[in-house]
């Protein structure tokens, strides 16, 4: 059964006619040029935007769900994150427990171990490097133990090592009854890590399906206005931009 079902989603001029499902155990990648509506789509699912159409979570209308109920199941990892105050890492991760109204040390500790930030629990988050901070923000999301993570370009400003680590964690999360929607710019990583891809163009779905179905030279030319060579024959898919 689908975790999330989206029917005829519309958001003023940013999104139109979106139909989509997120299956259990799926890592769904959202790709598309800047301004295609990737963030807007995630914000609608996270309950940040008043949309038209219908989004269902396990067959329940998302709009009918109480904010806290929704937040316990769906967590958003925003594109840019910054703490206004010099909070300690432990307190930032504990923020993920807000929808539950507790500061249960068990999930907090587990999230810290998963993301490898346990050793900095008493450090101030603003003293960490960008890559280290990104892991703390992810730990915050994991501490809430949501079923669905909406990650908005979590790889931006990360070096190759941390990009791999974050993708591994998201892949690991997308199992059993859980799922991840990931907005991502790097098409090679998207093709390698995601089960399915959604290609957005100017607020509309251009293509949806397996990476091989979506990432065709024709689609890339149409949406990104580039000529690219696509090779799915190797161990890792390869998209090379020509000229």
């Amino acid at each position, binding site marked *: 059964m689908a975790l999330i079902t989206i029917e005829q989603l519309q958001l003023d001029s940013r999104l139109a006619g979106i139909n989509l499902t997120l299956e259990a155990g799926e890592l769904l990648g959202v790709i598309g040029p800047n301004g295609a509506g990737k963030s807007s789509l995630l914000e609608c699912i996270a309950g*940040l935007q008043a949309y038209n159409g219908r989004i269902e979570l396990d067959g329940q209308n998302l709009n009918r769900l109480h904010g806290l109920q929704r*937040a316990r199941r769906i967590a958003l990892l925003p594109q840019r994150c*910054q703490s*206004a105050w010099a*909070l300690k890492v432990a*307190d*930032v991760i504990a923020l993920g427990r*807000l929808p539950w109204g507790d500061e249960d040390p068990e999930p907090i500790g587990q999230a810290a171990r998963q993301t490898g930030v346990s050793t900095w629990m008493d450090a101030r988050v603003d003293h960490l490097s960008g890559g280290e901070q990104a892991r703390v923000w992810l730990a915050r999301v994991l501490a809430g133990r949501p079923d669905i993570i909406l990650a908005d370009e979590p790889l931006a400003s990360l070096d190759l090592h941390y990009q791999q680590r974050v993708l591994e964690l998201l892949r690991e999360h997308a199992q059993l009854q859980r799922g991840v929607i990931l907005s991502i710019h790097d098409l090679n990583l998207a093709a390698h890590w995601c089960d399915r891809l959604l290609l957005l163009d100017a607020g509309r779905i251009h293509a949806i399906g397996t990476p091989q179905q979506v990432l065709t030279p024709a689609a890339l030319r149409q949406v990104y206005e580039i000529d690219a060579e696509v090779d799915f024959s190797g161990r890792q898919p390869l998209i090379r931009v020509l000229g």
Partner: protein
Amino acid sequence: MTPALILLMLLTALASLYVGSTDIAVLDGLWQWLQGTDSAAAIVIGEIRLPRTLLALTVGAALGMSGAALQGLLRNPLADPGLTGASQGAALGAASVFYFGLLPAAGAAAPALAGLIGAAIAMSLMLMLAGPSRQGMVIMAGLAISTLTGALLAAVLNFAPNPFALSELVFWLLGSVSERGLDHLGILLPALLLGGGLIWSQRRLLLGLSLGEQVAQSMGLSYARGSRLIILGAALLVGASVAVAGAIGFVGLLVPHLVRPLVRNRPDRLLIPAALAGAILVCLADIVVRWMPPGRELKLGVLTSLIGAPLFIWLVWQERRKWL
């Protein structure tokens, strides 16, 4: 942490009862006053020093807590009732009602009620002016609103029927807790409890807002409703305290910064300690005011501003370094 502050507050309050121009047995006086005796000691302690002390404590608590709430809500370490225009709005509302005898139905609470309305309007205008990019624009919008309300306040005092009104601009802008009776506490205390309760009910939102509006909302916290409640709570605190004691500047800025390191910078755990520390600070400042040679009473706000303004300058300096 909190128990230590409560103890410190009680000690400050006790010290405040001992400070005055006349030599009087404090505890005897207090006992006599409680028994309803009409001795000089009872009158000095019960009707002069005790109301003054309690008012300083409540006003300080209200300002400290509203400062902590506004800084948390606006995610700006410079937010303070004075710098966001709330204090001047409250002074405008309270003074209009006080000098012209408006809202007679509300009785003694009329200035506080008008102060609440004034503070709420000033803060709403400030938020509207600051727009969605709130964090950075708050201070500029606050400056605009506080300048406007300050000018309106001067105009109101100018046209007040009492010839001394205009010279009392100093009180409204600098504040004082001298020469007040216990009846003022009857207005301030409910406002403190109600306003503090509203803000306290939104402490989770304040914590969630550390990572931004988006994150707070994605965690199921209602920003629209919660921020309105926080503004209303802060308006209650600022409105009532300004109506009774004038705008005592920089307490709302200073106190949260002093307390923040003690609560690991968590905006939700800041609220109660900030209220306690505000009470201690204003009471201490008032003790110093009373220590000054008699004749020329230094306004309470002058003292708090002398402590607070350097901190403000330091914070601006910090902010500047952040952007360089």
